[in-house]
């Protein structure tokens, strides 16, 4: 009680509100730039902070980061819907979202996702005291088993992709080959992405100075560029978007979607390497989702819980789980946090989510006006033209080479309609194999050591 009163009656905490607001604003700008990931920007920001020796108390930095990650987790739906996804977590959402965009319901899709995001924040805030008890138990119990749980996730990702053919032919062999064409591409994508993962994680071409950005060209190549190329080739003009005054939704859908999304998001946040895309897929299967609105809403929850939750886990007193990119980036400058910082985190998170939601609506409308006026194709071309020099700037020729290879692999599922989740093998397989202790055997087999 005393702590709560202390928090309320000490106006110096208002400075945290200021920093979180700045973070939200910053994430808005980052989100507007297609295919740019908040983790890359934060990495650069941290470098600048160190380089310029800017005095920034840790709690202020935390508030800034919370604002950025919460804002990004809510705003990134907008560029993903209208310009293309920045990472795997977003690409899972993009297919149904693109479908709604085609029907002029892009705005509605964004708002549904944002409602889901708010649902996720509310659930996290409610469960925050419980996390203090549960997460340490989960960490203790699952700690020695993470490698096979990742292995199980990989096995399920492969086994749960079903053939997509139409089987129109009267020849069984033709139908079999047609169905397996998609599965075969999925398996090949998975295999190639795994090999790429072993190479970039153990013998990267990226200069040592930029080692913290070594994975960036991989993700740009696997996810961002294939999407941009597809946009340039395929997409015509975006149809006129309808901006409704209300969204067709009921509380049952909100509860169901938020609950399901929370499960997937929490799993992704808790497990190393698992992304919101994978978490979302698992939770949608676990709760047998079939409704498109439910999918979109629950995905909003899932990605927010994934991005923000993985950072929140780092602040649970006595646990300090380093999950997700943000926790890894800020961990060198973080001090040991206690209950006060943890609950401050929760409060800032709720504030940032509210502000972000309010800013989302005008932001989405502005984006809609932009895509209606500017040819979508040109947006993709400009993004591509900016993206390639940016990768070169931060990772050199080595990074460009990795990006080119990754783009080739990333195009496979896009062109053959296989699951893009297979691309996540780039991280899942090397990490799982290394955790199980077989990493050196594989590296030796591949001639990497």
């Amino acid at each position, binding site marked *: 009680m005393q702590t709560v009163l202390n928090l309320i009656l000490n106006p110096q905490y208002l400075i945290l509100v200021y920093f979180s607001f700045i973070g939200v604003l910053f994430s808005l700008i980052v989100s507007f730039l297609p295919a740019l990931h908040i983790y890359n920007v934060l990495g650069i920001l941290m470098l600048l902070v160190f380089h310029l020796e800017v005095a920034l108390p840790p709690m202020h930095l935390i508030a800034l980061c919370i604002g950025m990650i919460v804002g990004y987790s809510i705003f990134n739906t907008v560029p993903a819907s209208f310009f293309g996804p920045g990472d795997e977590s977003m690409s899972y959402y993009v297919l149904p979202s693109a479908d709604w965009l085609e029907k002029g319901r892009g705005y509605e899709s964004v708002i549904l996702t944002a409602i889901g995001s708010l649902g996720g924040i509310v659930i996290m805030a409610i469960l925050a005291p419980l996390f203090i008890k549960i997460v340490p138990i989960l960490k203790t119990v699952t700690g020695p088993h993470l490698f096979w749980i990742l292995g199980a996730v990989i096995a399920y990702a492969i086994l749960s992709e079903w053939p997509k053919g139409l089987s*129109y032919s009267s020849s*069984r062999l033709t139908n079999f080959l047609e*169905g397996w064409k998609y599965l075969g591409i999925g398996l090949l994508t998975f295999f190639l992405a795994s090999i790429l993962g072993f190479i970039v994680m153990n013998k990267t071409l990226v200069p040592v100075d930029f080692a913290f950005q070594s994975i960036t060209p991989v993700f740009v190549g696997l996810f961002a560029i294939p999407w941009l190329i597809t946009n340039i080739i395929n997409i015509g003009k975006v149809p006129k978007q309808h901006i409704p005054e209300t969204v067709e939704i009921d509380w049952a859908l909100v509860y169901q979607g938020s609950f399901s999304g929370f499960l997937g998001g929490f799993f992704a946040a808790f497990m190393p390497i698992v992304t919101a895309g994978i978490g979302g897929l698992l939770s949608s299967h676990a709760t047998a989702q079939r409704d*498109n609105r439910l999918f979109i809403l629950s995905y909003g929850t899932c990605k927010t819980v994934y991005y923000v939750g993985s950072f929140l886990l780092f602040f649970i007193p006595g646990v300090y789980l380093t999950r997700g990119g943000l926790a890894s980036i800020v961990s060198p400058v973080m001090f040991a946090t206690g209950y006060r910082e943890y609950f401050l985190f929760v409060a800032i998170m709720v504030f940032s989510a509210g502000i972000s939601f309010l800013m989302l609506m005008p932001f989405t409308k502005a984006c809609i006006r932009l895509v209606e006026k500017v040819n979508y194709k040109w947006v993709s071309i400009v993004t591509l033209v900016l993206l390639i020099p940016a990768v070169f700037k931060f990772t050199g020729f080595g990074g460009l080479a990795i990006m080119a290879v990754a783009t080739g692999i990333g195009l496979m599922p896009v062109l053959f309609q296989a699951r893009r989740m297979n691309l996540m093998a780039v991280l899942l397989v090397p990490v799982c194999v290394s955790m199980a202790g077989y990493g050196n055997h594989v590296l030796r087999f591949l001639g990497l050591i």
Partner: protein
Amino acid sequence: MKGLTHFVSGIAVASFFPQAVHMAVQEKSFILALGGIFGILPDTLDFKFARYFFKPEFEVRPDPNNLDAKKIAEGVAEAVKKAAEDGKSTLQLHTMQLGANRWRSYSLAFEKETSEIVVEIGPEIDTGQLPFLGTEVKDPQKAVARVKVDCEFQQDFDKKSTIGIMTGPAFEFAKTEDGKVEIIFLPWHRTWSHSFTLGILTAFIAGIIAYFTVGEGPNPDLYTLPRWMMYPLIILFGSAIHIIEDSTGFMGNNLFYPFTKKRTKGLGFMSASDAVPNFFFVYTSILCIIFNLDRFHPGQILETRAISNPWFYWIVFWALPSVVMFYLYFKGQGTKSKKKNKPDFDSPKMEHEPDVSVI
């Protein structure tokens, strides 16, 4: 049940073997994941292989440019008549793809009371099965057709199959001893792949391989079962749990193929695509996994366990949420039952599995 449900249940079953948990911790073995792989395997065999071995005698290929419900119904009736005369026939219904993300839907129902085959041409839909408004067929003569056949139908549940996206459903029609024609949905599904026999055979083969390749582990005196036996047992129980879970639905399984020839009826407790039962199985399995990983951790005693109060764990995390889940399930069933006079695709007594995504 959904694939994930079987997968997680398979892992849960594997986690009940203390030696398997020890192998995971001490030897970095993936043996627990093996339970999941064999848990989902029966569906993998069906949807990735068995479906392609099915050769239908009759095929209905509706023409999207010349929509005619009567033509479809007559195609189905032809297959039914063949079964009534010769004892058996098989039918494959095809979908109508109009574009990358656009399909024309239609539905098929067998009316027991009137012995009629009822076909309705539905609206155009997207791959998410959302209809495009205004795309319904305007001409009622072409949109709906009822074709009467000279035999009675035997069907275990009210059925109205919607044929929309991807591969359409297949049917088998079999004449029964009392002269009726039994309608068997997806005849290639849940047959040999969903039998205990296959599980036993696979486990036997795995057992032979394991016997010759898996060596003695650390502290063999601690265990009653030899280490190699973990592999066949986890495979056997992993696949068995799939069959048991599927038996709670409507479709059932062919439990002892090839000794039994037909699929048994399911217990009919729930539909394979019901959200709450699926989640209940997944949730219970996850709780079992966490509980077993904790209690079977090598060298673990109650005082050092992360879950030091098992009663609290099961009451708070399983019993109470289960009560909520069952309440929601039965409440949902009640709401659906009110709409029962409309025997459509969402009817509670439906095993709606026209596309693989719901399995």
